[in-house]
């Protein structure tokens, strides 16, 4: 084996130990042990590879890509299919990256940042009119469906509960389930999202809903003892206030 041939083979070894036992690399690795210059070249190559790999892994995934993918997926069936497993794994990887980015860059503002991330991610989801997993014009079957899945279910404010339902879906935020119930009021669709308050501890219960408007959408966010609720409507604040518990 010439030095150039050895280099070509050694170049295909990933930095770390995962490829070292591969039989195809054995001869080239032996050559590197015997040849000091080749060994030095290989060490530099591995160092270079490690640096490039770290840079490639630091490329951020676009915010909301996971929700965008999930929103366009067909609704899940009862049993976990293979794509759900793969998607969950991919989503977990994306969430882990996001969590890392957030934990590094944020200190005391972590809670409010997390809430902001939650609102952004959920908004990127509802804006795509996601398919519902369960459809019903009545709230009772929807509540039963949610309860069976042990997904978050807060007390629905009377202003929303009086509106006709469309259906619901369970999605995920950083590994925690989020319940989405859609209500239809004339041409307006109201999206009510509920998540365990432990995931968003920055929001204190009993406070009036916080209203935010952006791009023609208005969100209202509030918390009770167990859950954080977010109502998102493609309309102005006035339209949203009529649904709220304490406006």
């Amino acid at each position: 084996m010439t030095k150039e041939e050895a280099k070509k083979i050694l170049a295909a070894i990933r930095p770390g130990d995962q490829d070292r036992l591969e039989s195809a690399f054995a001869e080239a690795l032996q050559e590197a042990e015997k040849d000091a210059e080749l060994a030095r070249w290989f060490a530099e190559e591995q160092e270079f590879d490690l640096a490039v790999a770290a840079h490639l892994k630091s490329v951020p995934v676009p915010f909301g890509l996971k929700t965008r993918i999930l929103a366009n997926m067909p609704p899940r069936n009862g049993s976990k299919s293979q794509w759900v497993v793969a998607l969950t794994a991919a989503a977990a990887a994306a969430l882990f990256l996001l969590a890392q980015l957030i934990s590094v860059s944020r200190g005391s503002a972590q809670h409010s940042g997390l809430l902001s991330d939650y609102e952004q991610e959920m908004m990127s989801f509802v804006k795509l009119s996601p398919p519902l997993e369960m459809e019903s014009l009545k709230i009772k079957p929807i509540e039963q469906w949610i309860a069976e899945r042990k997904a978050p279910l807060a007390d629905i404010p009377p202003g929303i509960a009086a509106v006709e339902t469309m259906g619901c879906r369970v999605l995920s935020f950083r590994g925690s389930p989020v319940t989405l119930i859609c209500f239809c009021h004339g041409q307006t669709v109201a999206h009510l999202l509920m998540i365990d308050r432990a995931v968003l501890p920055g929001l204190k219960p009993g406070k009036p809903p916080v209203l935010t408007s952006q791009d023609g959408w208005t969100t209202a966010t509030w918390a009770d003892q167990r859950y954080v609720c977010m109502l998102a409507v493609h309309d102005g604040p006035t339209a949203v206030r009529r649904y709220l518990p304490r406006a």
Partner: protein
Amino acid sequence: MPLYRFALSLSREPCDAADLTQQTFLLWAAKGHQLREQSKVKTWLFTSLYREFLRAERKRRRDLEFDCDTQLSDVQILPVAANHLDCDAVIRALLDLEEIYRAPLSLFYLQEHSYKEIAETLALPVGTVMSRISRGKARLRQHLADGAHESISKREIA
């Protein structure tokens, strides 16, 4: 998400990469059940994404021609210190590579795949994958060195 980063390395545009990633998961939702071996899911996703990319590229540009005959000896390998690598420069240099090098090298640097899995994903013989990784790295170093020289020249002019 390694799949997105692979898509980005192929398409070179974040929006296209997001579309490719989404399209791959939609394909998985439609056809993934046909896969019998759970252990092959990762390869399936990367392979499907790569095929989707090629299909879109063919549609966009009917006749792709690559200089496949370049030999390793044609490429001047320049020393680039690993600890002096700038992240943006590395990603730019990687994205500037020709697709035949970019695809195997991106998979290699994502460190999720062995050279055999890369061969399977890209439907190439293992020897070709090894050659392209080796040549791709040489070209990557070349791009990084060119970029560094350019940057120094600009600083000197300024």
